[in-house]
């Protein structure tokens, strides 16, 4: 240890560091989707929102020199896509899942279209806080370089948990998700609640995308997101629409996704692609274990089309 090499300990350490780095987009997308789904609608288009957020953040950060303006732009782009989703879904007889697929196509296409000139230039990236200053070991320091967005996400999860339980807005969203009739009877417009919930969800998913392009991996290219958005949507189901469980699930997924690169870094390269698919396999396995054909999932908003 004294010579600074830590041998096979690299793997768990890299998985730990990776869990924190890789989980941030999962965390933001799943928290956003949690809000949207609690209001009774599912937005499968967050994959497109994520990519669009990544592109807008990179572009704005490059043009203005401020990565935080990029994060804001990513959020705004995400909420615009969310508004589009909610707008189309508010028409009668429109299937929200299908609209999500359409926006997945549209969002990624638009991001690739607009982002074509952004592949070359380098944009200023988000800063990280060095929590590993006490250590001499390079790997430890690398694992503990934590981005502020992750910390914001970690704080956001309990805040949302609390907000769903106790605030007026949380109750309204849950009412719209459990029984649109009840919300209507109270004199609220269900469509308006869902519009706002989908826009906030899109805002958070866009921020998740900004993390991809502005921190890790930290560049803009067309292979940036490979299904993190859709995995995060599945993760919400696994997390039973509970923001705190979303946090833990995101960390677990981040760790799973970091496994492949971590093993590669110590020279285990066989099965690299299979390890890269670990988050998807894990999602599927968890859904198989936790779902049941006989009952709806506990905690599922009753108005949600995906659990019926």
């Amino acid at each position, binding site marked *: 240890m004294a010579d600074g090499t830590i041998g096979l300990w690299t793997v768990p350490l890299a998985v730990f560091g990776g869990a924190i780095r890789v989980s941030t987009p999962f965390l933001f997308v799943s928290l956003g989707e949690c809000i949207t789904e609690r209001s009774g609608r599912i937005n*499968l288009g967050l994959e*497109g929102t994520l990519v669009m957020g990544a592109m807008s953040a990179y572009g704005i950060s490059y043009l203005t020199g401020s990565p935080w303006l990029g994060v804001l732009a990513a959020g705004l782009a995400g909420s615009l896509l969310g508004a*589009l989703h909610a707008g*189309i879904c508010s*028409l*009668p*007889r*429109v*299937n929200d*899942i*299908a*609209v999500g*697929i*359409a*926006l997945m*196509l*549209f*969002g*990624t*296409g*638009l*991001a*690739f*279209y607009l982002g*074509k000139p952004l592949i070359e230039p380098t944009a200023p990236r988000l800063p990280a806080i060095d929590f590993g200053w006490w250590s001499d070991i390079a790997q430890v320091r690398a694992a503990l370089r934590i981005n502020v967005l992750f910390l914001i996400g970690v704080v956001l999860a309990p805040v949302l948990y609390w907000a769903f339980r106790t605030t007026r807005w949380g109750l309204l969203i849950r009412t719209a998700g459990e029984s649109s009739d009840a919300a209507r009877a109270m004199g609220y417009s269900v469509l308006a609640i869902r519009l706002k919930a989908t826009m906030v969800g899109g805002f958070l998913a866009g921020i998740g995308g900004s993390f991809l392009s502005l921190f890790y991996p930290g560049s803009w290219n*067309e292979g940036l997101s*490979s*299904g993190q958005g*859709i*995995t995060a*949507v*599945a993760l919400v*189901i696994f997390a039973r629409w509970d923001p705190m469980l979303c946090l833990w699930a995101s960390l677990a997924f981040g760790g799973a996704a970091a496994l492949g690169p971590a093993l590669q870094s110590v020279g285990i390269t*066989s*099965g*690299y*692609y*299979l390890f*890269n*698919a670990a988050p*998807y*396999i894990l*999602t*599927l396995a968890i*859904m*198989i274990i936790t*779902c*049941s*054909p*006989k009952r709806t999932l506990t905690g599922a908003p009753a108005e949600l089309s*995906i*659990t019926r």
Partner: protein
Amino acid sequence: MTIDTADGVEAVGVAPAADPGFLQRHGTTIEYILIPGAALVGALAVFGVFVALFGKNPLDLYFYMYQGAFGTWFSWQNTLTRAAPLILTALCTALPAQLGMVIIGGEGALLIGALAATGAALALPSMPPLVVQLAMVCAGMIGGGLWIMLSGGLRQYRGVNETISSLLLVYIALAILNHLVEGVMRDPASLNKPSTREIGAANMIGSIPGTDVHWGLVFGLIAAVASYILIYHTVFGFAARVAGGNIRAAKIVGLGVGKLIMTICFLAGASAGLAGMVEVAAVQGRTNANLAAGYGFTGILVAFLARQNPLAIIPVAVLLGGISASGGLLQRRLGLPDASVQVLQGIIFAFVLASDALYGRIGFLKGKS
């Protein structure tokens, strides 16, 4: 997804007669053509505005799109070559849709079908081409079929949402493909782009005589017509539509919903798997990451635009094949990024879904019922 579609399709080519009852009698059919058509025009208009924002002339855009898709015999052949896998992958979404299921994993079944077909061809090195081709068709269809059947089974027996599971399976299929292509199935001679060994020129399925369009188009046409007959003219298809309309009613009259789901999902996946086989045996000649070209995802759009009707899938696939065929020309002549086709597809998709709200609301088409 009503029964009216069945007799409606025959009326497609009929010119509107002066008969005053015509609009009323064929109102539903006309709606099925008019509304998606209007959605398509609306989407093209929005896309025109979109490119105009980037300083391109929309009229040039439409001209080159037409040129690239249907303008010359060469572009027609390009369009039809692209339409072939689209018909097959669209069936992967349209068949389960009869049961009310939204399967979006055609891309995964295509990849698994391609892998299975390639594996079959490489496992039979010195067989006559016809045997190898038959084995490839069977392997591709079984591989793809089992892949989507997995989603169907998870839905039926574990209650896992089929939309999400089928999409997750796309990423898993891609990982399996990359793993095998970089591992045991890798041709050591493929350095830059890891690929399997070639299936051999003799085993390629070749083109329809007189054209450059491969036989995959015929496979697609047969599959679409067979699916149409299955859904609208057999008891099995009727049972599927009953179950899709009302799952409880289906159970009450004693339909085996599980068996229906498994069979339909197998057929759906087999269709997409056949698309993978066709791409290997008619275009690529081997399996590599090039196969993940997005045919599976465009197929979803084709199915929705065709309102999940297997026969309507054929013209819609040609149309969407044309749009993607024109992408190259748009890139060269107008300097549009290659993603512009994807943007247009997304806009079309959104318009088509939004247009669902219009059915039964167009005043002059309302029947007297």
